[in-house]
């Protein structure tokens, strides 16, 4: 089972990285870019369990470790088949 977790800075929170990347893109000529937010992507490979249970476990992982709920939001997908690299 693979969980793909995306952690983003909350909309109201300052995102210096996003601001700087936006400026970088603009100076490369990508002037159509209005806004950039930079977050984290975390791929968690889990063993066993049902999709339902995995969902609950990953939710708990996000709350406890993967995301900092003070300044970040998270969301995730679960890919049921056990795909290993």
């Amino acid at each position: 089972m693979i969980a793909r977790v995306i952690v983003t800075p909350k909309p109201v929170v300052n995102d210096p990285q996003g601001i700087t990347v936006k400026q970088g893109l603009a100076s490369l000529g990508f002037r159509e870019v209005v806004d950039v937010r930079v977050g984290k992507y975390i791929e968690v490979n889990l063993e066993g369990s049902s999709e339902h249970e995995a969902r609950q476990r990953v939710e708990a992982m996000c709350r406890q470790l993967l995301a900092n709920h003070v300044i970040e939001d998270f969301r995730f997908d679960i890919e049921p088949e056990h795909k290993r690299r």
Partner: protein
Amino acid sequence: MKFGVVVFPGTWSDRDCGWVIDQVLGAELTYLWHKDADLKGCDCVILPGGFAYGDYLRTGAIARFAPVMEQIGEFADRGGLVWGICNGFQVLCEAGLLPGALIRNASLEFRCEWTNLVVERTDLPFTSRCEEREVLRVPIAHGEGSYFADPATLSRLEQRGQVVFRYCDPGGRVVPAANPNGSLHNIAGIVNARGNVLGMMPHPERCSEAELGGTDGLKLFRSVAENALKVLVS
């Protein structure tokens, strides 16, 4: 002989390098602003340490697009001496002037401490004042200094002798325990195939005066000062 020290927004070793060049070495110094379109007749360009553009996204990722980098690329192509220190090394890798990349330290922590480096090449304009396999004491200060290259690139580097410095123990042995950041093959610095572009994570400008704890770094500055005019820039 004139050194040019590049200043990106977020660079901080510019003034330290400048101090060593100007006050310790007594060589001619000019600062190159990231927006500059010419190199003001420098014989050696230093890309110093710092967090250019905050090192946001990736170290050196945004800096490599600064206008001055185009000039530096051409200068390097013509055989001019280009020396990247710490963040400068990261920028050179991002710009493709050196192979590979620098990733997060294996410890995931920033490390500011003294390291030992064994010198593997002394035939370069940067290291001519060093002895064969001399051990230099030079501090590091980085969070992303772990050198990575794919296996093919790595073996090419090794075969062509492009590894200039490796982390070692005080006796010069290249052992895992002496590796502060997880670099492949304990690599601390590499040079391009032509031998005129050097990138290194440790900070020679922090050990060029006895009061700072050592003078091994000065050997590198002296080497460059001695050789820069002999280097043929086409």
